[in-house]
């Protein structure tokens, strides 16, 4: 607003000078926020001192004093930070498997909503409208009850055992408390195997590049997936035998007193309830995102695919979905973030995730403020990691599109 020849007199008075207002406004805002924060925190410290509540983080090194559900390896004398780590692990596991379930079911539901089969489309709509409008906490409690407590499964000591054909090993151990699935154990020479497999992976990447370049140059079918799979399988086999078969399958079985699952990998009902409930809940949101994204792909694209006589599968796989995914990925990852945050409801089904353990810990006399701050920090870290992935994916998608 000022002209270049402005003299000192021609400048507006300072309270109308935009530069001064800007600086003063910012200083004012910072000061106000600082004062409010300062007031809150000084109150907090005064009150905690007055009531003789500990403000130190030493408690992290004191004993936990309670047994973590479904974690027999955990020693109650272990320090509180180890308990926190168990919580982080369980939160991660529930989030990870929940995300996988939500993605699969969400994709199916999103496509099913656009199905030409009336029944399929209708059921998918009912699914979405049902799950989307019920609080996740209610769903978690419901799945805990409906599937496990009141469900069809027997009690632990009378587990159903699904045998592998022609052997005595259990493929699956099912009851209303914890399920056993086959696991893998490894011995000392496993390092050789991993080293060989790593070489195999590098080789596979190189093969992928080679096939791609070949395709770009000559236009011959690349069969990248087949090639890479082949390389990986060969590397796996070489590694497996060269290192003297370091892996062994471990089959789930009931312990002698029929109170534990020995061998295999054990998942408890709280984990299953929360993973299924949150997976299905989030899937209803993801389904809507997928459907919206498919609808957002220009109709001409489908028509073009039809004109090329692609089958319905090919049309989806090669024309519609790749374009829809670009639109769908950012909101879907936001849903993943919500899912991870919702795992904090594990306390409803005796699932020992971060929030449930922190809550129990506070209830048993650990300082609330410090515990909650640590818990929030961990969730924040989870969120930041997922946001980071979102940003990377976004950038890649944009590179592809331009």
């Amino acid at each position, binding site marked *: 607003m000022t002209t270049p020849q402005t003299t000192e007199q021609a400048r507006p008075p300072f309270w109308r000078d935009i530069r001064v207002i800007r600086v003063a406004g910012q200083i004012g805002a910072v000061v106000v926020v600082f004062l409010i924060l300062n007031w809150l925190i000084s109150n907090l410290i005064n009150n905690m001192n007055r009531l003789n509540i*500990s403000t130190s983080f030493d408690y992290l090194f004191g004993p936990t004093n309670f*047994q973590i*559900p479904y974690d027999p390896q955990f020693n109650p004398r272990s320090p509180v930070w180890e308990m926190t780590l168990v919580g982080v692990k369980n939160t991660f596991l529930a989030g990870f498997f929940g995300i996988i379930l939500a993605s699969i079911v969400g994709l199916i539901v999103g496509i099913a909503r656009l199905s030409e089969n009336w029944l399929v489309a209708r059921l998918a709509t009912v699914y979405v409208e049902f799950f989307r409008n019920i609080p996740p906490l209610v769903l978690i409690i419901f799945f805990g009850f409906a599937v496990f407590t009141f469900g069809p499964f027997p*009690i632990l000591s009378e587990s159903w055992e699904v045998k592998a054909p022609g052997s005595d090993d259990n493929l699956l151990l099912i009851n209303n408390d914890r399920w056993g699935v086959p696991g893998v154990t490894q011995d000392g020479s496993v390092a050789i195997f991993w080293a060989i497999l790593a070489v195999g992976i590098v080789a596979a990447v190189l093969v992928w590049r080679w096939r791609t370049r070949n395709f770009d140059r000559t236009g011959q079918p690349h069969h990248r997936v087949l090639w890479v799979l082949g390389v990986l399988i060969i590397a796996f086999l070489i590694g497996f035998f060269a290192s003297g078969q370091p892996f062994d399958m471990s089959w789930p079985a009931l312990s002698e*007193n029929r109170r*534990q699952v020995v061998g295999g990998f054990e998942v408890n009902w709280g984990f299953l309830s929360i993973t299924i409930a949150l997976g299905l809940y989030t899937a209803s949101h993801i389904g809507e995102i997928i459907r919206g994204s498919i609808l957002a792909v220009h109709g001409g694209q489908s028509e073009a695919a039809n004109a090329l006589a692609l089958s319905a599968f090919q049309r989806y796989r090669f024309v519609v979905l790749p374009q829809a995914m670009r639109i769908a990925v950012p909101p879907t990852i936001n849903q993943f973030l919500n899912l991870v945050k919702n795992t904090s409801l594990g306390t*409803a089904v005796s699932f020992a995730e971060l929030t449930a353990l922190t809550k*129990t810990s506070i209830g048993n006399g650990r300082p609330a403020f410090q515990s909650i701050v640590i818990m929030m920090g961990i969730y924040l870290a989870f969120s930041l990691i997922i946001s980071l992935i979102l940003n990377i994916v976004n950038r890649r998608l944009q590179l592809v599109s331009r």
Partner: protein
Amino acid sequence: MKRSKLLAAMAALTLVLAACTTDTGTNGGGDSDGGTLQAVLDRNELNCGVNESLPGFGVVDDQGNFSGFDIEFCRVVAAAVLGDADAVSYKPLTAEQRFTALQAGEIDLLIRNTTWTATRDGQEGVHFLFTTFYDGQGMMVPAASGHTTLEDLDGANICVLSGTTTELNLTAVFNARGISFNPVVFEDNSQLRPAYEEGQCEAWTSDASQLGSWKFTLEAEGGEEQLIMAEIFSKEPLGPAVADGDTEWAQVVNWAVMATVQAWEFGLNSGNIGSYDGTDPNILNFLGTDNFNPSLGLPSDFAVQVVTQVGNYEEIYNQFAELAPLAGSVNDLWSNGGLMYVPPYR
């Protein structure tokens, strides 16, 4: 010049904030200037932290009314202090947040089946008063299982409520004996009971009083026969608690609560206390009819109010069929071999 204007503005802002800081109300419980007693009298209502879903101790009926053993003692304090047993505002609290509520002054008094422990007395800033109920942790199993000792439960799933001393006791006892176990932790009994009945856990641990009432309920509804193991593996003195640092209020609550036991000892109950015409000087003191006033901060007729409006300890106890029979239990009067023993009122 610019600077000074800015500084002046900031100073003004600080003053405003400071003003906001200083004139915030002081109507809470806790540590306001007049003490909790004065705050309660000014408010003419007692804020009492309770449990809203513990059979026998605190439940809410379909009309929204609170009832239970703990609830009655909230009423006792209200009757003693305010002369009206109904002048109580009940605040349902979870196990985790009860001490915070007390410290922050949200409630004047906590009567929520709270166990008196050293940590809570010290670290949580809570002051425990006269124990109204002596309990202990027990273990219940279906009788058909044949288990009779804790050792029989090696490696078993055990149902327990979250955020209570029960969880800690369980861990301590089992660890001390080298028995392994798996706690299945629930938020409330409405989830825990089906899990126990459907066999998700083999045993149910809680305070013995609770187990007794659940045993009764389960069997009465045609369920399996239940066994409460003979071993009681913890001491659980349950009683009222107030915030640290207000002795006047602690004293008032303590004597109001103890008056129920004293009345029982004197043989006074809600039926006969109004028509007492004897000459026992101790009883006359107790009734406040001869202007005896030990300056506790309570009206001289507080005991009469308590007993007529709520009842003596025995009457209160016997209202709740869920609790184990009083006679011969640890909660019986000292003269009958129980633990209910109060200092003399004189």
